[in-house]
């Protein structure tokens, strides 16, 4: 009986965040099949942890588990992703194009944006997904990614810089 109550409460509190969980897992694992497996494992872990969850923000609580599960999953099933440190020399070239950056970006097609975001290193991709797609606040991002809140802004700044440079490079070539 107690177990049934626990499950009912769990489904009520945690299941509504299924889309959020899947979206993050999908962006971190890059494909539907792995994302579904990660989400299932996430919910099983969350269920085991659920007694320790005493209210608060269930979405960030679940997303933190998605993130951990995704990274464990990737370590187990994938060769390590390229997590090169940002090479200032390589990436900081000014674009040759005379077109203002904002105009170039405005012309970026969806496929290009999606690909550029897919190719960002995971630590940049995850903060952008949480901020721009999931709409989390800095505090919530800090809780999910497990970094001090004071570093969220600089992480996002670096992530945006990387993405902007990747896009502008492609777009300048096209134009």
């Amino acid at each position, binding site marked *: 009986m107690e177990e049934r109550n626990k499950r009912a409460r769990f489904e009520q509190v945690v299941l509504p965040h299924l889309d959020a969980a899947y979206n993050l897992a999908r962006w971190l694992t890059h494909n539907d099949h792995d994302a579904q497996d990660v989400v299932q494992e996430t919910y099983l872990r969350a*269920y085991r942890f659920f007694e320790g969850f005493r209210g608060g923000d269930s979405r960030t609580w679940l997303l933190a588990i998605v993130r951990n599960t995704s990274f464990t999953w990737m370590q187990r099933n994938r060769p390590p992703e390229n997590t090169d440190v940002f090479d200032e020399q390589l990436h900081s070239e000014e674009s040759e194009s005379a077109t203002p950056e904002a105009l170039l970006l405005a012309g970026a097609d969806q496929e290009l944006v999606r690909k550029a975001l897919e190719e960002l290193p995971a630590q940049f991709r995850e903060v952008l997904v949480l901020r721009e797609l999931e709409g989390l606040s800095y505090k919530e991002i800090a809780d999910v990614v497990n970094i001090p809140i004071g570093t969220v802004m600089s992480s996002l700044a670096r992530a945006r810089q990387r993405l902007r440079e990747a896009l502008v490079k492609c777009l300048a070539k096209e134009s």
Partner: protein
Amino acid sequence: MSCQTTQKLLDGYLDGELDLVRNVEIEEHLGDCPACSEAYENRQALRSAVRAGAPYFKAPAALEKRVRSAVREASKAEPAPRVGSWRWLSVATVAAAVILVLVWAPVPGLREPSGETLLAQEAVSDHVRSLMAAHLTDVPSSDQHTVKPWFNGKLDFSPEVRDLSSQGFLLVGGRLDYLAGRPVAALVYQRRQHFINLFVWPVARGSNAAEEMLARQGYNLIHWTKGGMNYWAVSDLNQSELHEFVKLLH
């Protein structure tokens, strides 16, 4: 406001995360400075491109069914509280313990200057592992009279277990862990979504030691010695609330 400060805060401004004063200062600066203003427009353009181009992947319909049934299976299989379980002593823990012994064997006594650093590292690892590996507690209970007797026969000392729920720190349970080359009691408390691991074990010798505060990998640690016991509190909770927690224990 200078261009340098503006550029540093521009993302916070874009995300609406700055306080009112900063917001006004940046707005004024952007009005006067074409370079910063362009930098801001570029960020806005990037945001629009991302929101228009990067899809939000909704869960496929079948996934909800799959998750529901997996959870149902898990709830059927869920045993009674895992009292007395030694499963926590996983291969990883044993390996860590072996490494710890190897590392510390040549060091005479644990009070070497590097002892604190090693111990802090180990305490953080234990804390992280407890959260990651679904081994937060061996005896999940918010009742101090359940948690304390559980350690009987598992440790050669009896840790004091306090109920601090009325002060906003909920007792989640207890766990056996391995620290400083020996089994220790880990008491788990919770403040909002933040867990605190409080590691307790007897001192070999020596007197009381005042609190010391450290930070490692984004976690805060406070350790002290009192009444013949070592205490290490580890959490991602902010320093002042962790300190409040420690004060309540005194």
